């Protein structure tokens, strides 16, 4: 018998006026999850992942209309008694901060045990057990606000585990964590699944590192299950689906490209009679991927040789060396106004910064930012990336050193938490606020009546209003309506900003920043928590803004995003800007801190950093 069984389950939310929404958030879900399964739940924002997960937890069930049934261990979820629902099914939320209830780690772990009324002895036994299992003795008596995001999420997980759950529901648990913390978290979840056979249902956008060990992937779209299969097979099924293809690991995409090539072109370098790759399962991890490449090693070497023959007239080296790559970079540099002093927007000279004495965060930093650049700042967690940005935009003051700006430079800064930028009741008011603060209107053409009139307009008319569309935004080249359409947030303008999803909020704050008629857009972690498609859209938007003359500086943990889009990459390490170069050069040289694609193909084409690089070079 399956552990969890969805039988023709549909759900529609209760509207705020008490009527049932016509639109079903979940439609005809039929699903079986077996004891000990590791299930990955994917789908674009708003597809119903969270609705599906919360419907599995009696305490969190949203108000609304339910059809069909969900059974847990043969019992309808509704009929589970309070205690077993609380204990058997654990639910972990996205944001590590907002779920912590008490102020010390030990209290937090004890919290659920106190709730279910266990005697003190038993509570202490269970805590000691979990502390030993995770080795978190050092932080046991710490205050929770001294912990890093990853540690907080670990404490949250421990706080579920002391109840000895059979099922863990994880709702994008790693979306707020940096990559290292994500790996650690993931490895723990995997351990729980393998060693204790806890059933895990996890929703996540960046699935590269999860695919290798899942039993089942479920791809949701518009409240319906589009695909539901084991990892290997689902990769084959969705490879041509333009939405879900984005969720597949890079390894799988490369494999599919190569495999297709064997099938489609019997001649040329892939001249074997049969596809050597078809014998293998679809690779999901780098290890499996490398094994595939090894099988066709000779063919790949052949391609490489052929490629070098065509292109290496200017170089004697057999492989494209770093040296050659560097010369490429210079030509790239010449295209951009790097060295031209007139185009410098911001100059940092010998910046030192510390929050407290004797604990320098940044040390002697020199940095120059020129017009039209798309710069990204990468580096480990807590090296001071956000601090660097805040110093650059002037909201923190350096202890020593100067930040100089071009005359009348307008900077727009987007904090990593979009919530911080909202203070109005509707998204359109937020937009108006930004426009006003930029002085795009002159005082005589804009007054309080105009403001009120504009606010009275409903969504569509607001977007179309002449007044707003007449504004010219320098460096952007789009009108107000075009911008809104570009971001695809036309139907949000009437909403309260807090009622928008995380991805939508991210877009709103970036648009708000652009409406300030800015020269320089500074973004702190804009890719955090975005689903792959939103991330792709964002890249497109930013690139077109760059083409129109905007300058962008952003931090990111998403190396693929950086490699694909940015033209200059800074790496912050040990209080200083360690590397300042083209991202492709940096990642081609790196061995560990690089993209999945690069790790996969490093032995054959070390300079290929993105999927597009590989596709271009291997012609797949």
């Amino acid at each position: 018998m399956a552990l969890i069984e969805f039988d023709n389950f549909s759900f529609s939310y209760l509207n705020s006026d008490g009527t049932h929404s016509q639109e079903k958030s979940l439609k005809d879900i039929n699903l079986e999850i077996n004891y000990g399964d590791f299930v990955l739940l994917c789908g674009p924002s708003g597809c119903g992942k969270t609705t599906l997960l919360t419907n599995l937890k009696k305490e969190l069930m949203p108000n609304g209309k339910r059809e069909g049934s969900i059974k847990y261990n043969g019992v309808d979820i509704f009929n589970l008694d309070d205690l077993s629902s609380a204990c058997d099914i654990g639910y972990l939320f996205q944001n590590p901060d907002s779920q912590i209830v008490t102020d010390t780690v030990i209290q937090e772990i004890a919290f659920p045990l106190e709730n279910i009324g266990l005697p003190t002895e038993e509570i202490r036994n269970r805590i000691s057990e979990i502390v030993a299992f995770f080795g978190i003795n050092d932080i046991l008596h710490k205050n929770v606000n001294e912990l890093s995001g990853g540690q907080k999420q670990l404490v949250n997980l421990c706080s579920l585990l002391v109840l000895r759950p059979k099922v863990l529901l994880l709702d994008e648990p790693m979306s707020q964590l940096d990559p290292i913390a994500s790996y650690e978290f993931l490895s723990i979840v995997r351990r729980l699944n393998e060693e204790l056979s806890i059933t895990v249902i996890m929703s996540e956008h960046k699935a590269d590192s999860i695919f290798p060990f899942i039993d089942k992937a479920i791809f949701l779209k518009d409240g319906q299950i589009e695909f539901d299969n084991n990892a290997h097979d689902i990769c084959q099924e969705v490879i041509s689906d333009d939405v879900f293809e984005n969720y597949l690991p890079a390894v799988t995409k490369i494999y599919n490209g190569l495999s297709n090539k064997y099938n489609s072109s019997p001649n040329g370098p892939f001249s074997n009679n049969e596809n050597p790759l078809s014998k293998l399962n679809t690779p999901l991890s780098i290890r499996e991927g490398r094994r595939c490449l090894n099988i066709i090693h000779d063919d790949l070497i052949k391609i490489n040789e052929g490629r070098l023959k065509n292109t290496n007239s200017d170089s004697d080296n057999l492989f494209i060396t770093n040296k050659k790559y560097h010369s490429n970079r210079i030509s790239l540099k010449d295209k951009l106004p790097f060295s031209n002093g007139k185009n410098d927007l911001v100059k940092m000279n010998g910046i030192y910064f510390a929050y407290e004495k004797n604990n320098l965060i940044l040390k002697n930093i020199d940095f120059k930012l020129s017009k039209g650049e798309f710069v990204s700042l990468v580096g480990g967690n807590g090296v001071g990336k956000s601090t660097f940005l805040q110093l650059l935009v002037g909201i923190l003051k350096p202890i020593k050193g100067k930040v100089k700006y071009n005359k009348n430079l307008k900077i727009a800064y987007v904090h990593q938490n979009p919530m911080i930028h909202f203070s109005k009741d509707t998204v359109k008011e937020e937009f108006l606020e930004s426009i006003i603060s930029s002085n795009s209107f002159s005082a005589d053409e804009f007054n309080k009546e105009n403001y009120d009139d504009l606010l009275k307009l409903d969504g569509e008319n607001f977007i179309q209003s002449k007044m707003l569309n007449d504004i010219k935004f320098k460096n952007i080249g789009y009108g107000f309506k075009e911008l809104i359409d570009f971001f695809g947030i036309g139907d949000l303008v009437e909403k309260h900003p807090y009622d928008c999803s995380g991805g939508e909020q991210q877009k709103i704050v970036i648009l708000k920043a652009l409406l300030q008629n800015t020269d320089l857009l500074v973004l702190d972690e804009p890719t955090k928590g975005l689903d792959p498609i939103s991330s792709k859209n964002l890249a497109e938007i930013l690139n077109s803004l760059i083409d129109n003359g905007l300058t962008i500086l952003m931090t990111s943990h998403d190396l693929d995003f950086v490699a694909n889009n940015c033209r200059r990459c800074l790496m912050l390490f040990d209080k200083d800007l360690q590397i300042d170069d083209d991202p492709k050069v940096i990642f081609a040289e790196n061995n560990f801190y690089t993209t999945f694609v690069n790790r996969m193909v490093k032995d054959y084409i070390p300079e290929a950093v993105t999927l597009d690089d590989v596709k271009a070079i291997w012609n797949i």
Partner: protein
Amino acid sequence: MELTAIHPGVYLLYYFIMVLFAFIFSDPYFVISFLILILVLISLQGVSSELKNIMKFFIPLSLLIIILNPLLNRTGAHKIYLMQNFFVTYEAIAYGVLMSLALLIVILVFSSYNRSVSYQEMLYIFSKKLPIISMIIVMALRFIPLINSRAIEVQKLNNLKTNGIESNLNDDADNDNNVNINDGDNANDNANDNDNKLDLEEYDSNISSMDFNPDSRVLNKIKSSKRFQKIAKEAKVLGKIMGITVSWSLEESMFTAKSMKARGYNSNERTSYLSFKFGLADIIFLAIIFITVSIVVFGLIQGYGIINIYPSIDFSFSDLPLNIYYLAFIVFLLPLIYLEIRERMLWH
């Protein structure tokens, strides 16, 4: 104190009696002994930063009491003439000093209490009777640093200039126009400078446009005064920071409620992971408290430890309080000092 475990309930009783004693005793020998012993205890326990904060408020207060009492209070047999017709009384001065000393002792007792009993222990006692309220307190303690860090972030953002930065990096360093924006002026000033520019706040419908009631002339007057406008402007900046922090925190805490429900809060009677056993040390401590307090109270009834100040002070320093009541009072104050000293010796 780490090497002796004393039940928080015992502490509570002990400190409560101490506070009462601080109010009751007025005999300078008792008061000064009390002060000395409590100072010894605090120096053993370590001075906390809170104490310094509270002292900032109470030192001027006690000085005021010492000065004001003789000025306002002319009763007392011993007159001290400062000027021809102007006198203060010896009793009034003594009264003011004793009052201030009592005040000081109470503060010190509470400071020591805060050292001895952690708030977790206090909440443990509290949670038996008021489980929900103590849960609220624990949660509030967790939220405070979180909200504080949010407020700092919001405040930082408020420093950002969106109206263009008036400096030129290509100018020479000796040029006066070359202003480093980090050289002092902050956003609040900047907002005031841009008078010719469109002021965002004028169109701000959320932050109340100050439509005063036309009937109230007084308020209109206040409104037009420059000082009020400046305060109002500062209040708006402060308010904006506070408003964003508040709405953000309220929004996020919705998840806190969910996470509590998900972990079974409200499903059963709550227990505690903490347990305090009533040990031998507690019994000895209680016995000491009981015996000494009985003796002291018996003495109090007979008038030991209390002096009459008005109309004439009936105290002389030569009356040494060599009696069992004074002794019991001292013994009552000693147990914690003994434990602290013994702990120090054990560590060495």
